[in-house]
């Protein structure tokens, strides 16, 4: 059974702290993604990576950075957490797009981050 795991289900941090969210997939997927999910706003892409050490900004990268040192692991970093980063964070992975279509993404269970 395919698996995407996230290091924490719930996390509480203080304003200004550096926060690391870890994601690991066991499907040998090239693509990995970080989204944040807020009520009424759906999922918004923060960053994605299509290969080790490669990354691209998504729609809302401000205040975040990422690291992908190994194929199976994709980390999201909040350099200095702020209260407006309180959200649900979802990691996903997928195999590369085919010639005519995209492949589906596989999601982790999410990390609910609260910044006080």
């Amino acid at each position, binding site marked *: 059974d395919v698996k995407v795991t996230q290091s924490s289900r719930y996390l509480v941090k203080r304003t200004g702290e550096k926060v690391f969210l870890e994601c690991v997939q066991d499907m040998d997927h090239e693509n990995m993604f970080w989204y944040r999910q807020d009520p009424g706003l*759906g*999922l918004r892409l923060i960053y994605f990576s299509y290969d080790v050490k490669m990354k691209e900004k998504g729609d809302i990268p401000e205040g975040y950075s990422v690291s992908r040192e190994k194929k199976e692991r994709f980390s999201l970093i909040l350099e200095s957490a702020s209260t407006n980063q309180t959200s649900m964070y979802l990691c996903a992975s997928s195999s590369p797009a085919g010639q005519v279509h995209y492949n*589906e*993404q596989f999601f*982790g*269970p999410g990390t609910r981050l609260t910044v006080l």
Partner: protein
Amino acid sequence: AQSVTQLDSHVSVSEGTPVLLRCNYSSSYSPSLFWYVQHPNKGLQLLLKYTSAATLVKGINGFEAEFKKSETSFHLTKPSAHMSDAAEYFCVVSVLNTNAGKSTFGDGTTLTVKP
């Protein structure tokens, strides 16, 4: 550019009655379309996908969706709702000619199933 609109933020049905969740999309190129379901405090799970083969797509748990290019729609249906279908549903469009891996998610539709 691509976009997706889920026409209803909330849908409420009675158990045993049909479900219709509406999704319209726009894209400059042939899209790949997906429906995902998210149960409370869980990640998203793929229900079904359209990738330019048959226009009527069957998914898990009795759901299906029909790709209608002329209407730019990809509505999700189920003949008979079950209590376990209560969840949030997301329509997603991905277009191959955009940056690798970027998909656009709808805002979600919350499905309530009444006994």
